[in-house]
Structures are given as C-alpha cells and as structure tokens.
C-alpha cells in the first residue's frame, strides 16, 4: 500500500513537473522584476545596506519572518514532527522564544547605535580594526554555514520534486540558486532582498495556512482526533506525542537536547542576517514593531507546522515519508499531494504550489545571508580595516557588490561539494556560533561599562573557536553513520551541539579578557553608546 503511494507520488511529481517549473519560473521572474526595480532605487550606501531605512515596522516584520523561516523550518520541522512526533516541536519552541531576547535586549539598542552591520555596534567603543576584523570573520562564518545548509537543502528538494537524480543536475541546481542570489543582492541590495523576503513570507504563510486548514478539515477540527490518528499511524503509540522519542534515548542524548535548546534560544539574537534587518526601519520604535510582527507571524507559522507534521504522520505511513527522504524533508510537499488527492489534478496543483513556496523560501533566505556577509566584508573589513575608514561611499558600494559576487561564487563551490553531506548539523552549528561568539559580545558591548577591546576579541574568537572546534570533533563530522565523513572517526566530543560548552566559554572569555586587559575602557565612547542606544540621539 505505502509503496504504491510512493510510486504514485513520484509519478505525480514527474508528470506535473511542468507545473512545478512554471510556478517556480513565475516566482523567479517576479522577484527578478522587483530586484531590477529596487536596483534603480538604490543610489547610496544606506540604500544598498539598509534599504534606505524607509521600511515600515510591518513591512520589516514580514521581511524578518521571510528571512528567518528557512527551508529548515518549513520542510525540516514538519518532517521532524512527522517522523519523531513531539520532539520535532521542541525546535519550534526554541526558535520562537529566542525572539524575546532580540526584542528586549538587542533590536532597539542596535538600531539606535549601528549603521549597516553587527560590527558597527561591536566596534563602537573599541579599537576599530581588530574588532571589525573579528566581527567580519564571525559574520561570514555564521552566514556561510547557514548558507551551505540552505543550498544543499535546495539541491535535495529540487532533485526529489523534479526527479533530477544525476550529480550534474544537483550541481546545476546549486549553481542556479547561487546565480539568483547573486543577482538579487548585487543588483537589488537590501531593498530588493527585503521585497523578495516579504513576497516569500506572504506565500509561505498562505501555503502553510491552506495546508493546516485542509488537515484540520479532514479531522473535523478535532485536534485530539488528529493527534490520536497520528500516534496510531506512526506505530509508536502514545510515545509519539511525548518528548523523548528522538532525544530521550540515552543520558548523553538528553544533554545534547539541552545543549541544542540553549543554542536555539540564544542564537537568534546573534545571527548577523537577522540583526542587519533592524537597520531598514527609521526608528527604534519601528524596530520594536517589526519584532512584534515577526513574533506574531513566526509563532503562528510554527503552530501551523504542528498541524502539518502531525497531519503528515496521520495521513501517510512512516515508510512513505522516509522512502521519499530519510530525514522527512519532503513530508510537507507529500502531505499537500495527499490532501489534494493522489492522482488528481487538485493534488498535483497543491504539490506544485507547496514545492514552489519551499523553493521561494530557500531563495529569500540565501539572499539575506549573502547580503549579511557581503555587507560585513565591504563595510567592516574593506572600508574600516583595509581602507582605515577612508573609503568613499562609491568605493564601498562597489566593494559590496563585488563581494556579493565573490561570496556567491564561493558558496556555489562549497554548496556543490557539500551537496550530499548531512546538512542538519550546519544550521544548528550556525546558531551555536552566533550564540557563543556574537551574543556575548553584543550584550557586553551594550550593557557593560568596563568591557574592553581585548574582552571583545576574546569573546568573539573564543566563542567561535570553541563552537567550531567542538563540532569538528563531534559525531556530526566523523564517527557516526549520519556524519559528514562516516568512514573516518576522529571524534572525542560526545554531543552534536556544542552550545552547552561553547556559549559559557564565550561569555566567560569576554569577562576574563576584560578584567585582564591593561587598557582602560573608553569612557567617553561608552557614554555616547549608552545614551545613543537608549534614546536614539544621533542615530543614523
């Protein structure tokens, strides 16, 4: 029975390939149109980096949701719930609660005191060149890890949906994603990227809402019935609805889960591609409003993934889901097919629409990530380190456009190499680095009078090295069947997520570096930063 479904699903997918491709082409053409339009409006650096700071709180909230809800959220969480039940839901909670840190501690002070990048705030009262360099390195590392996961995800998704299985085909998909993101960012800058993210957020919310409605309709809006059917159908019974199916296996996996939970909740407010979005609105109040909208939209979306995941578990057999993709990443598109009716036009249209939405999701997120890394390269490293703050606006924008092309090409290369690797660890790693290297430095910079340049360097590099180093020697990279390199084993760190160690290390080193520094903190600059961050005086 289940195998029949898979064959049917595969037939549907290839028969209606034309439909998927046309919907996808429509999205690409529409967004390229927006990009060209936005490119004409992009005249100075504030336009390129910050979209002219003229977006409203609501627009930015929508764009933040579009930037944040990656393919990992839409496909990954729905799939994780479909296969591991309740444990998949745990991700959603961490991803959402994290926004309170951004709202309460980071968004408004950052908007008031920075200009274009995370480095603006970190280097505000420090020696510019070393801190800018560190901020640039950390921004690029976090963004590239995140980017690789998205690109590899795009390859997997498209090859499944379009039936492309050849290696050359997968590389072609990764290259296509890369070329599109280079065009969005280098031509449209922050304005183009923001509009692409807004369009994607609307499509994604509609897509998820439609599927949720159809799932609930199938169960007459009886949630208990939906959960019961999912539990029974999963073959795991009540355990499917309880925590522990995935993470409760051993003492170590429980600690791993706590580590992941900490990294998720502390990572968001340190993700550079999220932070630069706060510069696109005119005031701190608008930044606050954008986070409120983002919390509402993202929260609603994650509640819907619950219906999608349990709906997929209730309507399909676990084997059908894993046959299509072992990690469950295609559970949501398969669910669309089932809800519309396997072997019906309506089912094919739903499948094609949801697949196109998933692809739009990936494109919008990679554009945001590319923009964050090229902004940081051009503004922090080129303009302030190499040119020592003497670059003209024209030179800086040119550097930003060229670094977009450069980062895009590097990502295509790495993405092509990483296309078959296990990518789940990469997103969690990006969150862990953001929480270990960026968040401590941001919080100390904004709120701790005594914090010094040495403290900032120790927390950035210390947190970065601790997080990346521990992952390198973890089961994510070697020594496990699901590792990136399953055939070798050089792991000695037992957890897949380094957060529980590397985040305290980042905070501790920031403190230690400060109390051990010989230099005095710049009191005048801190007065400026503190007054500015809380009142908006002198904000750009």
């Amino acid at each position, binding site marked *: 029975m289940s195998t029949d479904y898979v064959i049917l699903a595969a037939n549907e997918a290839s028969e209606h390939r034309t439909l998927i491709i046309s919907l996808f082409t429509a999205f690409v053409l529409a967004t390229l149109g927006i990009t060209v339009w936005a490119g004409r409006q992009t005249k100075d650096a504030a336009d390129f980096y910050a979209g002219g*700071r003229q*977006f409203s709180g609501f627009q930015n909230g929508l764009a933040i949701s579009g930037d944040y809800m990656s393919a990992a959220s839409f496909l990954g969480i729905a799939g994780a719930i479909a296969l591991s039940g309740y444990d998949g839901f745990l991700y959603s*909670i961490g991803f959402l609660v994290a926004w309170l840190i951004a709202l*309460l*501690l980071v968004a408004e002070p950052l908007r008031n005191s920075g200009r274009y990048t995370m480095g603006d705030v970190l280097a505000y009262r420090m020696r510019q060149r070393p801190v800018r360099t560190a901020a640039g390195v950390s921004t690029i590392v976090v963004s590239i890890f995140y980017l690789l996961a998205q690109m590899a995800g795009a390859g997997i998704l498209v090859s499944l949906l379009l039936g492309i299985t050849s290696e050359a085909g997968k590389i072609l998909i990764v290259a296509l994603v890369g070329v599109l993101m280079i065009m969005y960012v280098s031509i449209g800058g922050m304005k183009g990227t923001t509009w692409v993210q807004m369009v994607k957020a609307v499509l994604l919310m509609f897509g998820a809402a439609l599927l949720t409605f159809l799932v609930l309709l199938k169960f007459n809006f009886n949630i208990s019935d939906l959960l019961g059917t999912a539990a029974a159908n999963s073959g795991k019974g009540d355990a499917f609805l309880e925590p522990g199916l995935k993470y409760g296996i051993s003492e170590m996996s429980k600690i791993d889960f706590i580590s992941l939970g900490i990294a998720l909740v502390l990572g968001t407010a340190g993700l550079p591609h999220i932070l630069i979005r706060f510069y696109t609105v005119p005031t701190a109040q608008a930044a*606050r409003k954008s986070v409120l909208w983002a*919390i509402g939209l993202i929260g609603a979306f994650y509640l819907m993934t619950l219906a999608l995941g349990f709906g997929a578990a209730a309507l399909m057999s676990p084997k059908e889901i894993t046959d299509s993709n072992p990690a469950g990443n295609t559970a949501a598109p398969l669910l669309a097919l089932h809800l519309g009716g396997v072997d019906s036009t309506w089912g094919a249209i739903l499948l094609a629409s949801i697949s196109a939405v998933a692809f739009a999701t990936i494109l919008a997120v990679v554009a945001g990530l590319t923009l964050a890394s090229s902004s940081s390269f051009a503004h922090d490293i080129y303009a302030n380190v190499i040119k020592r703050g003497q670059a003209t606006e024209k030179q800086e924008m040119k550097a930003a456009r060229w670094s977009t092309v450069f980062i895009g090409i590097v990502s295509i290369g790495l993405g092509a190499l990483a296309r078959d690797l296990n990518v789940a660890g990469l997103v969690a790693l990006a969150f862990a680095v953001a929480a270990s290297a960026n968040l401590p430095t941001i919080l100390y910079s904004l709120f701790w009078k005594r914090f010094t340049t040495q403290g900032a360097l120790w927390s950035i590099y210390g947190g970065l090295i601790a997080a990346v180093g521990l992952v390198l020697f973890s089961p994510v990279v070697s020594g496990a069947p699901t590792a990136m390199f399953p055939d070798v084993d050089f792991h000695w760190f037992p957890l897949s997520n380094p957060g529980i160690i590397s985040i305290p290390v980042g905070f501790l080193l920031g403190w230690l570096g400060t109390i051990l520094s010989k230099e005095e903190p710049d009191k005048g600059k*801190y*007065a400026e930063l503190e*007054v500015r961050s809380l009142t908006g005086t002198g904000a750009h």
Partner: protein
Amino acid sequence: MADSPPLETPHTRVPSTEEYAQVQESEEFGELRRSYRSFAFPLTIAFITWYLLYVLLSSYAGGFMGAKVVGNINVALVLGVLQFVSTFLIAWWYARTAAAKLDPKAEAIKTRMEGGA
C-alpha cells in the same frame, strides 16, 4: 516608500562627547536606564528560566509530560503551547511598557540633545 526624503534632516545637531557624558551622568538619564533595565533584565531571566524548565521537563520528566489532559492532548503539548502564549504575552507587555514608560523619557532627552536647547 522609496521617494520619501532622507531621514537626517539638516537642522539635527550632533552632540559633543562632553554632552553625551553629561547626559549619561544626569538624573533624568539614570531614571531612563533604571526603568529599562529593571524591566528588561528580570523579565529576560524569568522567560529563559521558564524555557529551560520546559526543556528539562521534556528531558527528565517523561511521565509527567505524557499525562493526558483532554483526549489525546497531554501535558507536554499544553506546556509547549503555553511557551507560545507566554512569548506572545511578554512581547505585548514589553511593547506596552516601552511605549508608556520608556519612549517619552527617551524622546525628551533626544529632542533636547539634538535641538541643542
């Protein structure tokens, strides 16, 4: 949106470092900093604790989390949804407090410093 005038209006004055230092020492700014920190810091500790409690319960209190509340809806699901509810409520509460208590104070300082009065 794109055609609106640039933000930095020409009459905005850039305050000097001494002025920033003076304002930082002032009673008025001290009051703003106190209001902000005494609201945001304890609340941050509170929601992180509540979240960690949830994570720990998920890991170590399987029996409790699995207890049925209504039909197939168990404690784990209720607590998970409560995390969503508390996040929405805290966000709303902060926005209200900031608009009522923090914004007027911040605005007064900013207007004075940039106007040079």
